[in-house]
């Protein structure tokens, strides 16, 4: 039995079954619309309403401040470092875990998941305990004039921690499901490890990988709690976009706060749009490969 990996919603059901009684259908649809409307659409709408309260001119002016600009640049830099590092890790971990059985595999899986359930406050705290002036490495760093926390490296590390599981978690079930027949065949034909990876594994998982990258990136750009602990909040220097939103909010500049927040909400929407596109592509690829397989083996 073929299973779609988790998190990959099969939107366009191949066969939508509507054999439930009309009233059941109507009730369930009503509940769904209401529930998602109240919990998801309303918060989203409120952000844009608040942001546009004083008109589009004020809205756009919020982005022209140098501090907003610096925050956006820092956020882009942080995710540009954190996402590729986690992609490399995700690929390595998925290869080791999905292709081999070994002792401690389940513990490794759980450890990979751990950052996902750890409170962001703790994620920040651990780096303070490690790199703070009174932490394990702090005195040494201080002597060598290296600043880790309250500077960009600390923000990158906290972001790495928080987004750690995303790519790996996406790839592991996907690669397990796909099985290693193709790779084994290539091995028998004499392909090297790198060749197998570049020609077979990577093309096979590319959409799942992209999906993981998209989620990882969204989280990297949006992380608040952990980054807030290690940032130091220096204006124009160590404030990421979510922190800048908080600052504006605390300056009673609600319109600008929601305007910058709407940027992140827009990012979320673009993320969701990309994700839907990726899913659509995956399904089409699947359908095609299924069709061609059926065609070749009558």
């Amino acid at each position, binding site marked *: 039995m073929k299973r779609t990996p988790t998190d990959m919603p099969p939107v366009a059901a191949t066969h939508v079954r509507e054999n439930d009684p009309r009233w059941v259908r109507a009730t369930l649809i009503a509940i769904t619309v209401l529930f998602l409307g109240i919990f998801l659409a309303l918060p989203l709408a409120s952000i844009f309403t608040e942001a546009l309260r004083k008109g589009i001119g004020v809205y756009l002016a919020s982005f022209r401040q140098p501090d907003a600009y610096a925050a956006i640049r820092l956020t882009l830099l942080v995710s540009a470092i954190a996402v590729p590092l986690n992609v490399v890790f995700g690929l390595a971990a998925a290869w080791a875990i999905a292709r081999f059985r070994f002792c*401690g595999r389940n513990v490794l899986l759980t450890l990979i998941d751990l950052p996902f359930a750890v409170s962001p406050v703790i994620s920040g705290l651990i780096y303070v*305990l490690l790199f703070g002036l009174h932490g394990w490495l702090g005195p040494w760093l201080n002597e060598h004039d290296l600043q880790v926390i309250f500077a960009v490296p600390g923000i990158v590390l906290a972001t790495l921690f928080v987004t750690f599981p995303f790519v790996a978690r996406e790839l592991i079930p996907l690669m397990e499901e796909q099985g290693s027949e193709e790779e084994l065949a290539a*091995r028998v034909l004499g392909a090297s490890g790198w060749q197998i990876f570049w020609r077979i594994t990577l093309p096979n998982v590319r959409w799942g990988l992209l999906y993981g990258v998209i989620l990882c990136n969204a989280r990297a750009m949006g992380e608040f709690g952990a980054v807030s602990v290690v940032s130091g909040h220096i204006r124009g220097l160590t404030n990421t976009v979510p922190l800048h939103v908080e600052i504006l909010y605390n300056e009673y500049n609600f319109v600008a706060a929601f305007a910058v927040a709407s940027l992140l909400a827009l990012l979320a929407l673009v993320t969701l749009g990309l994700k839907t596109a990726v899913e659509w592509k995956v399904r089409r690829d699947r359908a095609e490969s299924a069709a061609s397989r059926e065609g070749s083996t009558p």
Partner: protein
Amino acid sequence: MWHIGRTNSPLPGFRLTLGYSVLYLSLIVLLPLAALLAKASAASWSEFWRIALDPRAVASYRLTLGAALAGALINAVFGFVVAWTLVRYSFPGRRLLDAIVDLPFAMPTAISGIALTAIYARTGWIGQWLEPLGIPVAFTPLGITIALTFIGLPFVVRTLQPPLQELEVELEQAAASLGASRWQTFCRVLLPTLLPPLLTGFALAFARALGEYGSVVFISGNMPMKTEITSLLIIVKLEQYDYTGAAVIATVMLGASFAILLGINGLQWWFNQRHRAGA
């Protein structure tokens, strides 16, 4: 130590990838966590338990656990309905609804928190209707539950959709032809198949909610003993320069998260075994 007992797969790269994964995991996750445990162990055994079982800490665990559990339960019930509706019925706007289910994943938590507070405060869109009815939401445990429901929402829906999709129509039809009512079919045939993924989704939403901070602090009210979640208590301890206390509470939370995740992975493993055996 790490005992590597690889199986007989002829694929290359095991040592390289596992080595790199473990190294990276150790640097980014394990080393910092070790610093936390070391800090917590600065307290003696009795000191550790005195801090961990302080009434205020216990009240915060109870609140965090309770609200996370309530949020996860709401998500289990409504997430089931949502997943069912999105997979089985076609209606205008279905695709759109399906796409925004992931919003809580993608939206920065602090922004969700500000937006939720704005909606549920007494001046907000929903708060202004609930407050006169004597149901204050913002700054009460109810508000915390709502925030935790929000962030856990995608988990149940997304873990249920694939198995719902796969359910064999034949199975239902067979049950119906044998004279089972729809309700019986649902309870006897569908529910047992859907229960494991539902549990997984529930546990994931629960684990995520336990650690949530950003979206909760804005709406929670932060009253010690009443609406103070454990993550906030850690911050409060830190602000008083009580690093050891913060590390102790953090260790307790970390232990809880680890146990729950281990449980989820065990559950999934068990489910996969059964699944394979059945297939």
